[in-house]
């Protein structure tokens, strides 16, 4: 293991508290900590960096206990959301700051700066001042500066938060490439699920100081463990279902076990249907997957490659349940679907959320 948090406790913000928070991040992994603001994700990052002291618990980097070590001695690179470049220094001076502190020779420093500038695609711009750079360039310099002293661990706090959408996507790919090349253990904190999906080897979902879910992007998307994760990552239709005698029902419709996990006991459960798993058809036998009933189309929104369709389910216990479907514009089933028309609704895949006490 490369980064290990054991039972970390720390109160932050107005009421926020991290309580007995534990996390393992593997060597060379790019781990994304995903959460909304106030979830405690940034505090966690600052604790790993040693910038915020913790109340109890331990932090281990590469097996060494660094809990009481000053940030200067932890061998980390930290990238802040607003870049925080030293404005009175050139790009080159910024990047070589850590090496300068370590009294690395001038020649070696210059070599390393050239190398890093190439890595971030900014060769030849070492003499510029931060004020002469675009936001995206400043961000890349901040990354290079954090990597210059070859840290064991790279921590990024909302690194693309202040950039506009297009540049953000470019920089993500850039970061992914750099991280894979250097194989530095990385934790990135963000509130942006697209960013998490695109970058992460694994994602941790954090909310109010608790780690709700952890896994690869596809695991979290397909088989989330909590309602929060299900609706935080992508769009989710959450239906109330019942377990009766080992079988699963939505209303009176029995769901075939082939499309979901085994069921035990009698209780109500949450069932997750992703919009793209929802099927619509004029006749029930045109449905490929499980049928769940009839519905009335309420709204159709054209969104380029796909169309978002809202359907109110009829004939179910919960008559007001509205399902969102996402259908390819090229899908033939979409023909003739306009608000007000009746359709048969089904789905190809569903996931039953594990029951949690709360």
């Amino acid at each position, binding site marked *: 293991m490369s980064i290990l948090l054991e039972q970390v406790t720390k109160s932050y913000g107005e009421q926020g508290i991290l309580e007995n928070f534990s996390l393992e991040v593997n060597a060379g992994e790019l781990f994304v900590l995903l959460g909304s603001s106030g979830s405690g994700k940034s505090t966690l990052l600052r604790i790993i*960096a*040693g*910038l915020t002291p913790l109340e109890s618990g331990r932090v281990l980097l590469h097996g060494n206990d660094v809990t009481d070590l*000053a*940030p*200067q*001695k*932890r061998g*980390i*690179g*930290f990238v*802040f959301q*607003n870049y*925080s470049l*030293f*404005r*009175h*220094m050139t790009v080159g001076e910024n990047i070589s*700051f*850590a090496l300068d*502190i*370590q009294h690395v020779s001038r020649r070696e420093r210059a070599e390393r700066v050239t190398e890093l500038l190439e890595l971030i695609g900014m060769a030849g711009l070492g003499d510029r*001042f931060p*004020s*002469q750079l675009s936001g995206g360039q400043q961000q890349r310099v901040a990354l290079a*500066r*954090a990597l*210059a*002293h070859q840290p064991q661990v790279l921590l990024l706090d909302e690194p693309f938060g202040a950039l506009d959408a297009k540049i953000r996507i470019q920089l993500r790919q850039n970061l992914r490439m750099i991280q894979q090349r250097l194989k530095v253990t990385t934790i990135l904190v963000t509130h942006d699920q697209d960013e998490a999906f695109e970058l992460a080897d694994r994602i941790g979902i954090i909310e109010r100081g608790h780690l709700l879910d952890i896994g690869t992007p596809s695991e979290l998307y397909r088989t989330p463990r909590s309602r929060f994760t299900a609706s935080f990552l992508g769009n989710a239709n959450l239906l109330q279902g019942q377990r009766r005698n080992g079988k699963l029902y939505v209303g009176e419709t029995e769901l075939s076990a082939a499309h979901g996990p085994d069921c035990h006991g009698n209780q109500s459960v949450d069932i997750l249907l992703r919009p793209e798993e929802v099927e619509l058809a004029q006749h029930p036998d045109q449905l490929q997957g499980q049928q769940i009933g009839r519905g009335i189309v309420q709204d159709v929104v054209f969104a380029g490659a796909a169309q978002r369709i809202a359907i109110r389910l009829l004939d179910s216990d919960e008559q007001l349940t509205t399902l969102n479907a996402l259908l390819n514009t090229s899908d033939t089933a979409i023909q003739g679907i306009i608000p007000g028309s009746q359709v048969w609704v089904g789905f190809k895949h569903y996931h039953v959320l594990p029951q949690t006490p709360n």
Partner: protein
Amino acid sequence: MAELSVSTESLKPSVKSGSAVRFQIPYGTWGLRFAALCYLTACVIIPLIVIHVEGFRYGLDVFIQSVTRPAALRAVGLTLWTSALMTVINVIMGTLTAYVLVSYKFPGKAILNTLIDLPFAIPTLVTGVMLVLLYGPQTAIGGFFETQLGIRILFAPPGIVLALLFISYPFVVRTVQPVLMQLDVDQQEVAYTLGASPLRTFRRVILPAIRPAIITGGLLTFARALGEFGSVVIVAGNIPMRTQVASVYIYAQVEAGDMQAASGVSVILLLIAFGITLGVDFLQRRNPTHA
């Protein structure tokens, strides 16, 4: 030139580059502008002109002769070196005070913050009276310094420097403090994560960022101190060639009716003070690293 155009829209306000509204009825605008200029002229421009006209009234030779009298030279010299010494101390202590106020939580902080503004409120003449009471030869502190250490504080340069320090303390603190406050917290922390110790972080990261504010605050403090009168006339006394600073020299010459001597030194003081102000302006405008 919006106000020159005569158009059908002449009764509507026309906007120029989003900054000033101009009406086609110029009387109000011109009246206001005229009143403002009169006020500024009467308060600032006329005094400046009068001093220079009076100073050079009898030609350059007389001017030079009036400012090269030994007493005048001594007075200007004393003013310059005491002000400079005060500025150095004040820049160091003022910056430290601002840094401590911005960076640390400690008991008494609110009191300290209020205390710093007091010199600004207290009349400078009263400052002089206070220092006489504290450091006068008959007082415990003044007596101790004089008899035990052989240092005379009052009616001597140390008293002048103390008075100037007192009245100038708020200026450097209040110039540096806002800059420190808006300084990116993260910059300091980035430096920590890159291995820089707190001292090194201060020297390499914080100090360069606040240096322009420190220099500005210091120079303005110095320019102000050159003309200080109320406190200095009391702590320094009025002994020509020894404790007479420039402003007191001018006062003494006016009292004695020697207008030529007074205006000569006045011109010198003003030239130095305005030179510094221009320098500050220049420093503020020239800066390659900040856009």
